[in-house]
């Protein structure tokens, strides 16, 4: 036993994990209970072995990171933290000012679901703050452990690797923090430090590599993309009897649509793609997808690397320059919309070449609702009568971006669109929607099967709220505006014995309700 341990390399020790892909969710009761000590429910370290696979050496090299854990990782990590502190106001301020009041402790879905106290936002942030105190503050140098300072050793690095990959960067904790401390910023910094010492996460880094190389997360080359779109067009014609196009690389089209690549073939994502196509078709607007920018998603944000994020986003800029559209519209995707709405203008702007009378970029929900409002398209609500619909606010849209001109438009616009598409709409519990929404459990680069346990556990609060409306109101459709939410729920619903058909897109509803050929 001892010999076996001795042979392990540090990276093996740090990433050693248990994979429970068949993890089943608890029975749904509709109650979201906070784990409590007296019930024996707070269990320290209970998910410290739930860790994603580390990135391979080639994946790391492709992104310009060290291939595997470097020898002097402690020094490099500390230096990297020092650089980040000088670069990001958020990190510097947030590591300083937390008073550990405890308000955030019961707000994280991963804590509520896993019972592991290290998933309390403040405890998660402390994993990095301890190192900050030890190496960068007078307080930590004078008081040491008493102030919570701690040396960065292999044990702590292992905890970083576990718990910073059990945070979906959904920012729910930040809503309730008296100082707005954003754990997403902290977990992004921790992941960037881990990448810089050669400790990357396979799922995110491999996908980023594909995005840089091929242009989308799925690694689908332009030829394959064209073929997929053509066969989808055929299906669409068979279904509707109309020639509804899915144009690719059309120069001079009015609209460039950038959408997550999952929309091209994954279920139920593709249903939303059909919805967009029908909307453009019916409104009579020329539009195009781009093989250069065939991905709205941008996992650079998940690893906190602005360089990676800008590199990935620059593909969209290139597509605009190639195709010269007048408008830029983004499909249903949560983190992509945060990046598009909040970051694109800074990273790849200004968008002077686009028509200034439209917001750049614009969300597909903003666009479609505007058409509905102006009567440019007609929706027949009864087409969705078989559904009682509820809406899951995606975390990045709810707390990291906006829609429309008024604060909170990101809540009202998708809801208005859903209400215009169906007759029966129900809200979930008020503490689980809008800015208080729970993450689906798969965001922030967690959407990988080896950490299925934490994905199932993280989905628990949303599943409880969904269970309640399913029982009480007969809800059988949860509308989503995020590719990750869709992929996550398709996998997770069966783990809670809920049929996976309950998860679908907002434009899936729109696509079913739209009256084709009926000109206003």
């Amino acid at each position: 036993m001892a010999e076996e341990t001795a042979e392990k390399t540090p990276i093996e020790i740090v990433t050693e994990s248990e994979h429970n892909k068949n993890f089943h969710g608890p029975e749904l009761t509709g109650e979201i209970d906070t784990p409590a000590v007296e019930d024996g429910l707070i269990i320290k370290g209970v998910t410290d072995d739930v860790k994603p696979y580390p990135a391979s050496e080639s994946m790391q090299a492709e992104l310009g990171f060290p291939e595997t854990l470097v020898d002097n990782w402690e020094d490099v990590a500390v230096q990297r933290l020092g650089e980040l502190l000088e670069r990001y106001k958020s990190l510097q301020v947030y590591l300083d000012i937390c008073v550990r009041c405890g308000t955030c402790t019961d707000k994280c879905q991963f804590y509520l679901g896993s019972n592991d106290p290290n998933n309390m936002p403040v405890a998660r942030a402390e994993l990095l703050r301890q190192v900050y105190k030890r190496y960068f503050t007078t307080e930590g140098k004078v008081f040491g452990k008493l102030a919570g300072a701690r040396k960065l050793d292999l044990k702590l690095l292992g905890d970083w690797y576990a718990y910073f990959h059990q945070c979906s960067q959904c920012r729910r904790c930040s809503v309730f923090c008296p100082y707005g401390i954003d754990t997403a910023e902290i977990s992004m910094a921790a992941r960037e430090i881990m990448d810089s010492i050669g400790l990357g996460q396979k799922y995110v880094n491999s996908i980023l590599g594909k995005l840089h190389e091929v242009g989308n997360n799925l690694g689908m080359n332009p030829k394959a993309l064209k073929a997929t779109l053509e066969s989808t067009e055929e299906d669409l014609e068979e279904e509707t009897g109309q020639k509804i196009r899915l144009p690719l690389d059309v120069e001079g089209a009015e609209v460039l649509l950038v959408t997550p690549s999952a929309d091209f073939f994954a279920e139920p994502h593709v249903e939303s793609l059909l919805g967009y196509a029908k909307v453009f078709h019916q409104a009579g607007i020329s539009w195009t997808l781009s093989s250069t920018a065939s991905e709205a998603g941008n996992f650079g944000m998940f690893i906190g690397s602005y360089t990676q994020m800008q590199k990935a986003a620059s593909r969209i800029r290139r597509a605009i320059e190639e195709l010269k559209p007048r408008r830029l519209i983004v499909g249903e995707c949560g983190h992509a919309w945060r990046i598009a709405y909040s970051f694109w203008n800074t990273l790849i702007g200004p968008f002077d070449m686009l028509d200034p009378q439209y917001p750049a970029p614009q969300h597909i929900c903003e666009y479609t609702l505007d058409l509905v409002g102006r009567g440019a398209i007609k929706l027949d609500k009864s087409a969705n009568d078989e559904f009682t619909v509820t809406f899951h606010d995606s975390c990045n849209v709810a707390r990291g971006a906006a829609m429309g001109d008024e604060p909170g438009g990101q809540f009202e616009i998708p809801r208005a669109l859903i209400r215009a598409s169906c007759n029966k709409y129900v809200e979930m519990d008020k503490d689980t929607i809008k800015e208080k929404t729970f993450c689906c459990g798969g965001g922030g680069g967690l959407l990988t099967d080896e950490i299925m346990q934490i994905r199932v556990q993280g989905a628990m609060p949303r599943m409880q709220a969904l269970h309640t409306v399913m029982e009480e109101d007969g809800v059988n459709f949860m509308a989503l505006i995020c590719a990750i939410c869709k992929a996550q729920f398709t996998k997770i619903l069966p783990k809670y014995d809920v049929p996976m058909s309950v998860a679908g897109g907002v434009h899936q509803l729109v696509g079913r309700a739209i009256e084709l050929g009926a000109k206003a």
Partner: protein
Amino acid sequence: MDGLTFVYSLLFYIVINIFFIGLLLKFWKYVSTPAPLKIPQTPAPKTATGVGVRMFQEVVFFKSLFRGNRLIWLGGYIMHLGLLFVFMKHLRFFFPGTPAFVDTLVDIDLYTGFIFLSALIFLFILRLAIDRTFYVSVFNDYLLLGLLIAIATTGLLARFWDYSGTRAMIPDIKAFVGGLFTFNPGPVPSNKPFMVHFILVMMLLAYFPFSKLVHSIGIFFSPTRNQIDNTRKKRWGPWTVKNPRRSKPKEPVAVQPSFAVKEEPSDS
């Protein structure tokens, strides 16, 4: 000047320098560190006025905390309010003449000191009693609360213990503390609670800029709260802002070859 007054005065001047310079350096650090991307926590105001309103609600009412946890809000809010009143009442010791509003405050308000102390004790108990808060608390959290409790207790003792005796000492305290500000301190009043109270306050002030108490200035720099949500209308950037505190890059730590690489034969 007697020896004790000399020691107390010296301590005061050292501490007050640590406090202001330390806080100023922190302030400068927060001002000068760039915020490359817009990260307001939405729904966020679309105008500067809106951000002002949001910040006002956070600083004056602790709005987010109120939404997050009513018990912690209650303790924290009363504690801070108590601190504010107690501090204002102390103004009479700092200035030669007592500002009129302070006099009024002293007359109408006898109990804020006790309320302040009770709120601190309440927060201390809360830290121990909520299992989650207990888990995340570190020693220094208790240390700070303990220090504040000791300060409040000694302050109250100085004022109310042997009521008539201490009351009469207000001119003495004023002569000493007020004198410190004009570099002409009177002798340290020989009231024991006051002497301890003063030392404890000096300890607090010296620790202040290095502790979590910098949340008092940090909150104004919190990007999730102080940014305007207008990125589509107004370009934020340039995002590659240099930190003015960094004139030249530091010597980078050379990345040493990894374990895996080391085992491979080199063919160079």
